[in-house]
């Protein structure tokens, strides 16, 4: 109990004191996670929608695969990305290990299946609703997918937010591929792990509260964006 109060106090001091290092770490967390989120969404949203509207031979298999990939242990993802990016690995020449880019790659792999799976679920419902009309209007495949993405954008936003939540709180994979290097790859979660290891619970908790705060703020920001749109346009 005392520790939690101490943590709150530490978080408060860090935030109101505009602690330079906290800012740097927080911004890096956001930058890495948002980059991963954008890349993953660009892959996952069309993929999930395509799987909803198009029947093809291996469709069921692909859907099962995505659902299975959702449960990938992040540490294992980290390990595989580490091996691929390490000096002796196939992508070693790119020299990406222990950079924010490596962390983004790991996060993209972790959250793409999450977003694709949730997107697929909601796009399937929307497709059931629209199916007859869109077929009747003689729409092309591309038009069907674009219509579903546009009209289902709120559900897709929820899918993306789930991906964001998963990514911003992730620690195992980015610790391995990023290395938690001060001023280079240290982000909120890895800093928390480090401070906890050092026994500085107050600072660790303080960072934890900042992390939760950021996650809540991003959720509110995105939801209020979509609400403004509803009141304005709808």
């Amino acid at each position, binding site marked *: 109990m005392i520790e939690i109060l101490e943590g709150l106090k530490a978080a408060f001091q860090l935030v109101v004191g505009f602690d330079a290092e906290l800012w740097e770490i927080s911004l890096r967390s956001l930058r890495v996670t948002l980059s991963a989120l954008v890349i993953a969404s660009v892959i996952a949203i069309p993929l999930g929608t395509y799987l909803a509207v198009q029947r093809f031979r291996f469709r069921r298999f692909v859907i099962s695969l995505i659902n299975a990939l959702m449960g990938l242990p992040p540490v294992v993802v980290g390990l595989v990305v580490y091996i691929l990016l390490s000096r002796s690995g196939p992508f070693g020449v790119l020299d990406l290990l222990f950079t924010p880019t490596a962390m983004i790659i790991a996060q993209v792999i972790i959250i793409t299946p999450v977003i694709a799976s949730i997107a697929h679920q909601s796009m399937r419902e929307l497709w059931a*609703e629209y199916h*007859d*009309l869109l*077929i*009747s*209007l*003689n729409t092309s495949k591309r*038009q069907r997918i674009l219509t579903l993405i546009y*009209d289902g954008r709120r559900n897709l936003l929820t899918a993306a937010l789930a991906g964001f939540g998963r990514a911003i709180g992730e620690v195992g994979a980015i610790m391995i591929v990023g290395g938690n290097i001060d001023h280079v790859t240290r982000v909120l979660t890895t800093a928390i792990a480090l401070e906890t290891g050092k026994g500085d619970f107050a600072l660790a908790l303080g960072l934890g509260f900042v992390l939760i705060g950021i996650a809540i703020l991003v959720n509110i920001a995105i939801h209020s964006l979509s609400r403004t749109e509803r009141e304005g346009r*709808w």
Partner: protein
Amino acid sequence: MTAVFPLKLDRVLVRRQSKTVLGPVDLVLDPQGATIVIGPNGSGKTTLLRVMHGIERTSGGTVSWARDDPAKHAFVFQTPIVIRRTVADNLAYPLKLVKTPKDQIAAAVDHWLARIGLLGSRNNQAARLSGGERQKLAIARALIRKPDVLFLDEPCANLDGHATREIEALLHEVAGAGTRLVMATHDMGQARRLARDLVFLLDGKIHESGAADALFAAPGTAELAAFLRGDIVT
């Protein structure tokens, strides 16, 4: 430009789960007038319309249009489908699909909003409309691309007398302007008011068909006579 009619159905068969849902059906629809499809629940009215429109998989036989241009027929479903957009955007949607210039879309949308009495609801969500308003919207949206033929599947099934009259007036108008109507209905009064030809389905087969006036005056079969009287026909 050649007309899309006549439409010929030759030994058309629809089987679902080893049950014959429709057919074999032979039918020729010539370019003029309005064909009304009647028959008990489950007799295959919806299936027949969907087959003609080309959105139902057939298990045998051929459906041939004089000139097949799917953009030139439109369908109004038994339960109106509206997309999750505003009333105006629902009307604009079919035109956007065929890359109509913006000013033409705006003009057509205004015309149809006024015609169906929904000018005041143009920026409301279509999903919030009443059942009758939604049905009128679905009909206007089907007509907005100026189809040669309009299929309507019990468009007045859940509407009161006033809404039904409005829709019938609209249908009279478009039929007068040269749009071919093919409509299923349960309302014998409506069938009498709109039909030039009558198709009476029983158990997936055309039990009787021909000029509406003649059939109403003197049904050729006991089943049609009973059906027109409002008796239960099996």
